[in-house]
C-alpha cells in the first residue's frame, strides 16, 4: 500500500476529547496487520507539514451507497485531541479530503496459539490492540486490561467484549473499574496465568512497569511504542529508540517507525529507552 488521497467517512467524538475517524480505504483490510500504523496528513493545505502517526484501530466495510456499487471499505483510527494536528482533525467532516500513507511498520507477532494472552492498554494506547485481539481470539483466551486516569479515558470496551475478550478496567481515580494503576491488575493476572504472553501499548511509565513485571515473571512481552515521527518510513531517523546493548561506541538505535512500532521487550534498552522524558500520548499530536 502506498500514499493515497481519500476522504473522511465519519468523525465522531466518542468520549470527552477522544475521537473515532473512519477513512475510505479500499483494499486496506487485506494489507493492514495488527499493530501497524498510518501516517495521516490532517489536511491538504499547510500547516502542518508533517503527517501524524496513528495506530490502525480496525478495518471494515460499510454498505454500498446504492445497488450495484461495491461496499465501502474503511479504516478506523482513534485519537485524543492533544495538539495542533489533532485539533484540526477533530474539525474534519464526512467528505473532507485527507491523505494516508500506510500501512507502515512492523506489527505484533501472534505468539503461541493456545497460550493465554493478556493485552494491556493505557488510554489511547488501546488502539493497536483491537486488531490483535481479533486475531488472537481465534485460537487463545484473551484478556484485556485497560487503564486510564478517569472514566473518560476508558474507551471501546464493548467493542472488545463483542470479540469475546475478557476485560478488566482500572482508573487512577476509581471512577470506573478498580482504583489504581492497571499494572496492579497485571501483577495479579501474571500470578494466575504464569504461561501467558503479554502485549502492551500506552504511556511510557506504564510500559516500563509492565516490562519490569513481565521480566520478573519471565513472561514474553511485546510493546507498541509511540514516537514523534517525520517520515514514517525509516529515512529521517528522527524517531529512534535505544536497542539492547546500546552504547556510544556500539550504537544500537532502532527506528520506531520501521523496526517498530512493535518490539519484543528484550530488543530494547529499558534503562534509558529515549533521552527525553519518555514518549507519551501527546507525541501523537
Amino acid at each position, binding site marked *: 500500500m*502506498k500514499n493515497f488521497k481519500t476522504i473522511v467517512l465519519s468523525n465522531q467524538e466518542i468520549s470527552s476529547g477522544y475521537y473515532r475517524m473512519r477513512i475510505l480505504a479500499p483494499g486496506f483490510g487485506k494489507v493492514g496487520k495488527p499493530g501497524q500504523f498510518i501516517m495521516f496528513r490532517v489536511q491538504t493545505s*499547510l*500547516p502542518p507539514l508533517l503527517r501524524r502517526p496513528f495506530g490502525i484501530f480496525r478495518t471494515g466495510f460499510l454498505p454500498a451507497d446504492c445497488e450495484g456499487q461495491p461496499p465501502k471499505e474503511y479504516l478506523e483510527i482513534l485519537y485524543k485531541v492533544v495538539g495542533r494536528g489533532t485539533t484540526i482533525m477533530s474539525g474534519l467532516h464526512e467528505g473532507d479530503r485527507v491523505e494516508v500513507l500506510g500501512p507502515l511498520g512492523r506489527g505484533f507477532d501472534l505468539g503461541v496459539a493456545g497460550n493465554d494472552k493478556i493485552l494491556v492498554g493505557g488510554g489511547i494506547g488501546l488502539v493497536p490492540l483491537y486488531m490483535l485481539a481479533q486475531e488472537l481470539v481465534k485460537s487463545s483466551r484473551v484478556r484485556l486490561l485497560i487503564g486510564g486516569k478517569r472514566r473518560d479515558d476508558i474507551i471501546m470496551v464493548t467493542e472488545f467484549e463483542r470479540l469475546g475478550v475478557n476485560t478488566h478496567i482500572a482508573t487512577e481515580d476509581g471512577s470506573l473499574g478498580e482504583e489504581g494503576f492497571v499494572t496492579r491488575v497485571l501483577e495479579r493476572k501474571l500470578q494466575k496465568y504464569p504461561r501467558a504472553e503479554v502485549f502492551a501499548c500506552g504511556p511510557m511509565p506504564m510500559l516500563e512497569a509492565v516490562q519490569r513485571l513481565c521480566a520478573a515473571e519471565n513472561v514474553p512481552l511485546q510493546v507498541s511504542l509511540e514516537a514523534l515521527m*517525520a517520515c514514517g518510513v525509516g*529515512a*529521517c*531517523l528522527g524517531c529512534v529508540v535505544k536497542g539492547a546493548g546500546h552504547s556510544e561506541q556500539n550504537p544500537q*538505535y532502532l527506528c520506531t517507525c520501521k523496526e517498530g512500532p512493535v518490539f519484543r521487550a528484550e530488543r530494547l534498552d529499558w534503562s534509558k529507552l529515549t533521552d527525553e522524558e519518555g514518549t507519551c500520548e501527546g507525541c501523537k499530536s
Partner: protein
Amino acid sequence: MTDLAMNNKTNVKRPSLAVNIAGIHLKNPVMPASGTFGYGEEYAPYLDLERIGAIVTKGLSLRPKAGNPTPRIAETISGMLNAIGLQNVGIDDFIKFKLPFLREVNTPVIVNFFGNTLDEYGEVAARLADLPEVAGLELNISCPNVKQGGIVFGTDPKAAAEVVSLVRSRSQKPLIVKLTPNVTDITVIARAVEEAGADILHVDVMDGHFVPNITIGPDVVRAIKKYSTLPLDVHLMIDNPDRYIDKFAEAGADMMSVHVEACDLEKLLPLIRKLKCKAGAVINPETRVEAVIPFIEYADYILVMTVNPGFGGQAIMPACLEKVVRIRKYIYEERKVNRAILIEVDGGIKTSNVKDAVKAGADIIVAGSAIFGSKDYKAAIEKLKK
C-alpha cells in the same frame, strides 16, 4: 493522464528535462537532499526510484555513527527542524548492505560523506573511488548539528581547500562540495571596525518591502551589542517601523532612525526618545527636503540618504548634499528646541567626497563599502577621518 494521451495523439514531443552535471547524466534535475532520503531503499515501496534524477545518500563516515540523543526533530509552522547528528551505518556496511540494492536501480547514486579528520575524509573517498555504482561524491563540510560534522572544515578557507584537494587526489569521481552558510560572523567584524577607530556602528535593517533587499533583525543587533561598546545606530528601512522600535530598543539600539516616507514622524520620533534612544528622521533622495523640515524639532538627528537605500556600493548623488545645507540652515536659524540636532549622511561616501559632505554640514558620516571594501579597516577609517 489526459495531457499525456493528448500529447500522443497530436504527436507533441514531451520536453527533455535531462541535465548533465559534472559528467553525471540526470534524467531530470530532481534529487533529494542528503539525509532526507535514507539510503534510497526506504522510499522504494512508495516511489519509483528511477523517476528521480539522482539518489543522494545519507551522510556516511568511516565508522558507524550513533547520532544525537533524542528528541531529534521539532515541527515548526509548515516545516521542521532536525538535529539527527549524522547517524549512519558507516562506509563498510554501506558498501556491503546498502549499495547492492542501489546497483539494481537505474538512477545515478551520489554518496554524501564526512569525516572527523582530514585522513578520514581521504579514506572514505578512496574506498568509494573504484565503485562503478557510485556516480559522484558529495563532500559534506557543512553539518551544523555535530561538532565534527565537517563544519570545522567548512568555515576555514584553508582547511576547506585542503580537504577538497585531498579528496580530489583520492578519487576521480565528480565531486560536489556542500558548503555552509554559517561563515561570516558579524560580531567579529563589529569588533574589528571598533578597534580600527569607528565611532558609531550603523546597522541597516531592511525588510524586503520598504526597500528591495532583506538584511537583519533585532537578534543580530543584540549579538553585535554584546561584542561592541560603540553606540549602535539602527536605521530602520522597513514598513510599519512603529511595530518594531520596542524590539530594537530592547536589543540594544542607542540610536534609531525611521523614514519620513514610512511613518508619521510626529508620533514616532517622541516614542523612540521615550525608549531612551536618540531619534533620527531619514529622508530618501527622491523626497523633497520640505517633507522632513516640520519634524526636525522632534529629532535628535537627521539622516540624509545620498543613494537609494537597499544595496551597498552605489555612487553618491551629489544633489542630495544640498539638502544637508538646507537642513543645516534650518537648524541654525529657525529651530525652536534647545538641543543639538545632528546631521548624518549615508550613501556612496568615499575618501574622495567625504570633504564635500562635511563641508555641506554633516556631523556623522556613514561609510560601508569605503571601509569593508578595503583590506585594512584601520587605514580606511583614518583616511576618511582626515
